[in-house]
């Protein structure tokens, strides 16, 4: 199939960017979206134009490195990661607009690449269970109710891609944050630090400049791992509990 691509090009963080138009022919529907961009880049390189920079690593939907705004939707029209989006989701003659995640806490590095280190800093501020190596009791010392273990797993599948932020009209990272709070907060191991964790992580979330959540729900519908909105409620509940404890 033949496509027209509108792609955001920006030389570096401080440069002014703009949309550029490219046409691409002979795209196969078995290609992934990123393979389609690989083909474009190979052509640009041959023509002497610098290839489009975009992030990807595992290309199997698990590392969270990829992430593009495709036709106004984070990761494109399917519920999946950009690397797992295949061209069979498009048709011949389509015009596709590709933009980077837009959020001030995720500044553009180049073209479609953004800096998501804000997420790391949120994890640094309490997104863990303090268990020094070697200090662990036997794994069977504390059984965990299966329901809770499954819940913890479901929300721990967050890949930190940032699509939730990209999709949220408020630029909020509440879904990412809620997923971590829920993961650690639903396990017995996570209880001792539960109150302090939520307070410091929320504090960091706000300090990074993410917007507040007004429960719009775009995040959950863009999330490739289908993290549900429940986690934001749990986040709020944990904060409320921590507030009552005076943190």
């Amino acid at each position, binding site marked *: 199939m033949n496509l027209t691509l509108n792609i955001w090009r920006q030389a570096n963080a401080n440069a002014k960017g703009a949309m550029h138009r490219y046409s691409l022919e002979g795209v*196969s529907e*078995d290609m*992934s979206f*990123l*393979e389609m961009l*690989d*083909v474009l880049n*190979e052509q640009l*390189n041959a023509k002497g134009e*610098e*290839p489009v*920079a975009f992030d*990807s*690593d*595992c*290309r*199997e*939907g*698990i*590392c*969270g*490195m990829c992430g593009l705004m495709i036709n106004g939707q984070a990761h494109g029209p399917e519920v*999946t990661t950009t690397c*797992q989006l*295949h061209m*069979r989701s498009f048709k011949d003659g389509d015009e596709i607009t590709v933009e980077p995640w837009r959020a001030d806490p995720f500044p553009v*590095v*180049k073209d479609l*690449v953004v800096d*998501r*280190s804000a*997420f*790391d800093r949120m*994890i*640094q501020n309490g997104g*863990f*269970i303090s*268990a*020094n*190596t*070697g200090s*662990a*009791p036997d*794994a*069977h010392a504390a*059984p965990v*109710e*299966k329901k809770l*273990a*499954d819940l*913890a*797993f479901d929300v*721990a*599948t967050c*890949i*930190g891609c940032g699509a939730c932020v990209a999709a949220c009209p408020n630029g909020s990272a509440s879904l990412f944050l809620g997923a971590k709070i829920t*993961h*650690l907060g639903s*396990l017995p*191991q996570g209880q001792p630090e539960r109150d302090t964790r939520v307070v410091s992580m929320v504090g960091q979330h706000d300090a990074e400049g993410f917007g507040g959540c007004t429960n719009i729900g775009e995040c959950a519908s863009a999330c490739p791992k289908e993290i549900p909105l429940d986690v934001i409620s749990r986040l709020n509940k944990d904060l409320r509990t921590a507030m009552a404890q005076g943190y």
Partner: protein
Amino acid sequence: MGTPDPSGMIPTNQPSVQKSDDAAGFYTLGAPIIDETAPTGPINTRWQRRKFENRLVNPANRRKLDVIIVGTGLAGGAAAATLGEAGYNVKSFCYQDSPRRAHSIAAQGGINAAKNYKEDGDSVERLFYDTVKGGDYRSRESNVYRLAEVSTNIIDQCVAQGVPFAREYGGLLDNRSFGGVQVSRTFYARGQTGQQLLIGAYQAMERQVAAGTVTQYTRHEMLEVIIADGRARGIVTRDMVTGAVETHLADVVVLASGGYGNVYFLSTNAMGSNVTAAWRAHRKGAYMANPCYTQIHPTCIPVTGDHQSKLTLMSESLRNDGRIWVPKRAEDCGKPANEIAEEDRDYYLERIYPSFGNLVPRDIASRQAKNMCDEGRGVGPQVKEVQPDGTEVLMRRGVYLDFADAIARMGRDAVETKYGNLFDMYARITGEDPYETPMRIYPAVHYVMGGLWVDYHLQTNITGLFCSGEANFSDHGANRLGASALMQGLADGYFVLPNTIREYLADGPFEKIDESHPAVVEAKAEVEERIAKFLSIQGERSADSFHKQLGQIMWEYCGMERTEEGLTKAIGLIRDLKAEFWTNLKVLGTADSLNQSLEKAGRTIDFIELGELMCIDALNRRESCGGHFRGESQTEDGEALRHDDEFAYVAAWEFGGENANPVLHKEDLIYTAIEMKQRSYK
């Protein structure tokens, strides 16, 4: 260190005599080597004793000791967290935008541990035995025993960190059995075990970042090691955003940079997985051990066309319930699966290996899939292939992995709970519904057992340069059993390295060196020159196109079956490719900004050089063992045939210089606790 214990078994050294010399002319034979840190004594006390013998570092001194760790996967991330907790001053590097994205995240199936929670006869000894046998008797006994021993601590540690392993209704951990073994010892978190383990290590590491003991450098690619006065003292990196070439100095350097499967271009590795960190160390003198040992994983999604950028693995756990078959007759191969009657299907693994069936080790499952397709009984679309003699043929490269029986037996819901996410992934990539039609799978490069040579302490032959995880060669011999790479990564990171590195650091802090030290200046200049060179060639071909071509050569001649003729040819082709690379490469953009073409160029040339060494290593090893199958060395019924009399050694290759022959050092493998046997899974 390692004083011989008279009460223990003292290895009798039987130097191997190599009768065949296929690689003559391509290498120089160097002096044999031994692992001077290898422990002795009864095998089950070796690690305990070594931990006790290794010296301690005073807590007040740790702050003054700088540790560089390249890599934030299970091996690097776990080490950074643990050494940070201990109070060392750690600098951690990765090329991704966050440590959480290291490729360990992609591991699906699970992690082994000899917990024997199922009371099905598992033990440290059995895990040890299975791993040595699985590795086709090409690994070191002491290392493997240690791995099995610490495996249980890993599970405890991860659970304490909040890793959400699968659990049973009683609230206790669930586990399953995995390819190549008959006990249930694989702990898992649905099909995302690697992700969960890595997030655990990552969080532990981020906690240390907050504590100020670990500094993390993301989007930093290591491009050179700095060796000053005989010790590894630092690295040269490029800040991938600003292009700044920086030097980082320390008392010790750890490479935990993962595997180099991407030398085949198409593999299940991440796009950025590379050999650069290890290869640069190799060029500075570190030995590269058994580079040709590659694991080809049997259950991957087949290639669809030449646009393909990577291959996707479907967890091997699928083999627990899925049945693998091809049509009995080649004529049936074009038909839809459901039109092929039961009696016309050949469940070839169950037929050839009645006791292990679909659960045979990976190397065997992969090679048999290839054999079936070579016989013309493959399924799926026909793809164009170039035969070694240059003719083009249409081949079907795929076998069925069928869940119809499992769905009938367990019900669709149960199958969905167990494998749902894998099925979804398959459907997403292929556009087919695996609940309705059987999946098609084909082997793909997945893991490398080869890597930098290290001693029992995980130190390379360069003093102060350690190497852990997939980047080293140590624990898996010629083939790795499923679920044991995660085990090794975390064993190295949480438990081994922190205990061995202190023996080295007990002599530190070493005399400070600064930016003006000639070794530092030189290493930095080398990096800058290489970058300038890539940008100045201005030829016609992208780095990717060279990489792709290298991959085709490697897959064709150094893939699932290797022959003297093919390997010799490949070496020639690779040398030509290398020459063309340096004259016809085209990298646009500048050095002082994010430049992904430039990054690829650096990785590609290192892969090209590595590819050549892999072929030489494969050519030299005229035996079949584990993942290395030499056409010339097979039993009558086509099984791998080892030659323990000639090849029971680790091939440690020393860089011989630019365009000069590499030097082969042999380290003999000595078995005292386990008897070497010809592997049989029949």
